[in-house]
């Protein structure tokens, strides 16, 4: 029986202690209200038009693909990122200038995906840095963590699981009224994951709101009461317990590789990686869909770490993902960016062939427009989509045999994605072999002949 958009009734029972909602959410006021929230980086919106209310005691999941804006959204809540537009209201009062200090003061704690710890300090010293103006507030008795961190141990000597635990403990030390967890379980063992679930439940029962991002369905599914599904920075779908969950999670993929093309091809690349052999066929577009970021990076590095000479000999080029910040030198102009991965056609004996580079820039401009006036203007003037077009065309137009693209369409809007996919198809039809990596099958599938799930 949904009430005012939120649930009262059937609560999912996973472990021995079922969740009970002590507070009827319909008669409590929202803790945090966001309206019309937008964050813009240059011309690209990371999130736009977000309206969202979080109630005391609510466990809210934020879902969506990589690059959909989940982390940005929670960073706004934590005060790390200032919104370009929109209103933030905390317990009925508008928050004018949100900053981490303000957010902490309000009682919002945030556990960063990248674990904001201080490696040179000990566990106890890290904990001491948490501002503690809320110590007098009532605080539920939380289950003790199953592993113990020595308080004099230096953080640098902790393993990732211990670091994650410390990050969570640091957030809890501030006695928050709202706890934001960005991928809190990536390196936790099942034992600690169960502990965290227990903590989250206890907190929610005592009225603390939880906002959680996770790519693990098993983490979210038993806990969340409400959820937002983000797509390309917009709130595409709202969910509350009792509704169909399927739209929140991407469909499960069949593990087998699918071959779309029927004609037999010769393999151009035999890749021994992770104890398996992967065959890449000449003139195809092959997709690798990863479930873990670390594996994806390892894959890219394995291929990428070939020496320059060897790469040029086999005609292999690679392009890191637009988010990695490694593909373009944003402070430099078009010509310099074209020359980053110059091969023989753009440089000879250590000297750059400027005329050739200018020709290439003209070709890219002719094809993509780009909307930049001078070749010397820094490319950070370009929109995210145009940056990626520039980087991709730079690699494509130098006619490699094999081109490896790391999440090439990550964070791009539909229109740009489609043009780029078309462009890749065109290159393939001219005989280029292309490998695309990604985290989402939907992102990769439209233009791949063959997909491997890793």
């Amino acid at each position, binding site marked *: 029986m949904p009430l005012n958009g939120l649930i009262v009734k059937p609560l999912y029972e996973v472990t021995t202690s079922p969740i009970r909602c002590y507070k009827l959410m319909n008669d409590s006021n929202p803790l945090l209200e966001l309206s019309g929230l937008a964050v813009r980086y240059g011309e690209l919106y990371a999130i736009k038009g977000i309206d969202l209310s979080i109630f005391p005691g609510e466990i809210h999941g934020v879902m969506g693909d990589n690059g959909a804006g989940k982390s940005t959204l929670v960073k706004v809540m934590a005060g790390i990122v*200032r919104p370009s537009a929109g209103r933030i209201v905390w317990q009925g009062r508008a928050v004018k200038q949100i900053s981490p200090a303000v957010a902490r003061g309000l009682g919002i704690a945030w556990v960063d995906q990248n674990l904001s710890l201080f490696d040179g300090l000990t566990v106890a010293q890290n904990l001491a840095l948490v501002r503690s103006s809320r110590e007098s507030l009532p605080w539920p008795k939380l289950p003790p963590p199953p592993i113990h961190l020595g308080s004099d141990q230096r953080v640098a000597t902790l393993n990732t699981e211990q670091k994650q635990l410390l990050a969570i403990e640091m957030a809890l030390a501030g006695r928050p009224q709202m706890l934001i967890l960005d991928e809190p379980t990536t390196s936790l063992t099942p034992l600690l994951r169960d502990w965290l679930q227990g903590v989250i439940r206890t907190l929610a029962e005592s009225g603390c709101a939880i906002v959680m991002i996770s790519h693990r369905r098993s983490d979210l599914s038993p806990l969340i009461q409400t959820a937002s599904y983000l797509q390309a920075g917009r709130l595409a779908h709202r969910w509350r317990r009792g509704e169909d969950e399927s739209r929140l999670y991407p469909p499960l993929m069949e593990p087998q590789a699918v071959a779309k093309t029927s004609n037999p091809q010769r393999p151009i690349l035999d890749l021994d990686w992770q104890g398996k052999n992967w065959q890449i066929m000449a003139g195809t577009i092959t997709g690798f869909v990863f479930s873990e970021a670390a594996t994806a990076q390892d894959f890219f590095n394995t291929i990428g770490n070939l020496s320059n000479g060897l790469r040029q000999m086999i005609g292999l080029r690679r392009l890191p993902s637009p988010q990695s910040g*490694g593909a*373009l*030198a944003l*402070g430099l102009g078009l010509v310099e960016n074209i020359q980053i991965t110059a091969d023989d056609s753009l440089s000879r004996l250590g*000297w750059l062939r400027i005329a050739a580079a200018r020709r290439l820039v003209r070709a890219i401009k002719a094809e993509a427009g780009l909307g930049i006036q001078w070749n010397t203007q820094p490319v*950070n003037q370009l929109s995210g989509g145009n940056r990626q077009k520039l980087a991709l065309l730079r690699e494509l137009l130098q006619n490699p045999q094999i081109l490896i693209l790391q999440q090439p369409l990550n964070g791009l809007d539909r229109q740009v994605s489609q043009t780029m996919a078309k462009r890749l198809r065109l290159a393939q039809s001219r005989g280029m072999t292309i490998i695309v990596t990604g985290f989402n099958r939907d992102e990769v599938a439209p233009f791949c002949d063959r997909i491997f799930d890793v």
Partner: protein
Amino acid sequence: MFSLRQINNWARIGSPVLALSLAMVLTALLLQLLGYDPLKVMRILFWQPWSMVGGFAAILNRAAPLTMIAMGLSFGLRAGIWNLGAEGQLIIGACAATAVALTVPLSQPILALLVMAAAGAMGGAIWGLIAAGLYLRFKSNLIVISLMLVFVAQAVLNGLVFGPWRDPSGYNYPQSAVFAPQFWLPNIDGFPLFHSAILIAVAILVGGGIVAKYSRWNLGLKLAGESSQVAAYGGFSSSHQILSTLLVGGAAAGMAGMTMVAGSLGQLSGSVMQNYGFTAILVAFLGRLSAVGIALAGLLVALLTVGGESLRIEQGMSDSFVMGMAGLILLTLVAVDGLLNRRGQHDQ
């Protein structure tokens, strides 16, 4: 529309001018406060050298070593490789050149100068490579190592001019014997006051400018200055960059050292360097690391030093005033740059 980036493009040229004017206003205020006549001081500083006999030549002669060193340093600084040891590389270059002049029996002037120049450049380069090598081998602190090597170089210089190289007929001054004439850099033909070091400086600036524009090496340095990730993606190795930039910077400084001993003095003296190695860092930054900019900044600083001498003679003002003013110009430049480039970053 006046976007942030447009301001930045404009700032590349505009902010040094703005900084210069701001620094002049501040200095004028300081002078006024201390009871000097600011207008008169500024006139002597900026105008007098041009109207003096030989003033222009003096400016160019001083600008020559400054621009050479600055050009050499510009490559490393572009990549964020902080070689603060140019002064030491300059000193060792000068010592190496002197060693040739004092010990190698060469009579053919061109050959003599070539060997001397090669020795100077090599001396400076080796001193630079020592810093780079120690840094790379032990992954310690390049700033500190290069700085400490300046003091070591200074001690070596003093050890030589007070010791084995002291001119027996030099009234006990810490200086070497005067070189044989074939080891003197001649003045430019037809321009009796202009030193041929100016030509070397022009050659280094032009060559450096060409390398900066057309070499893939310099592209890598630019990328490294932007982001180490992009440089790595482009296939540039950072240790190679550190070694090569210290080699180039050291060689240029050593070359400058050679022109300083083989030039106006014709001997090595304990006080020959006049902090040119440090001043050149300032020249490189004022000139925005570009060849043209370095030439202009070198001329400006040289003008200030020549003007500073007039100040000392006419007003009895210490010429270190000029050094302070140069520092003030640089400080206002960084401040103006910082203010213009300030972004709404969120880490503070």
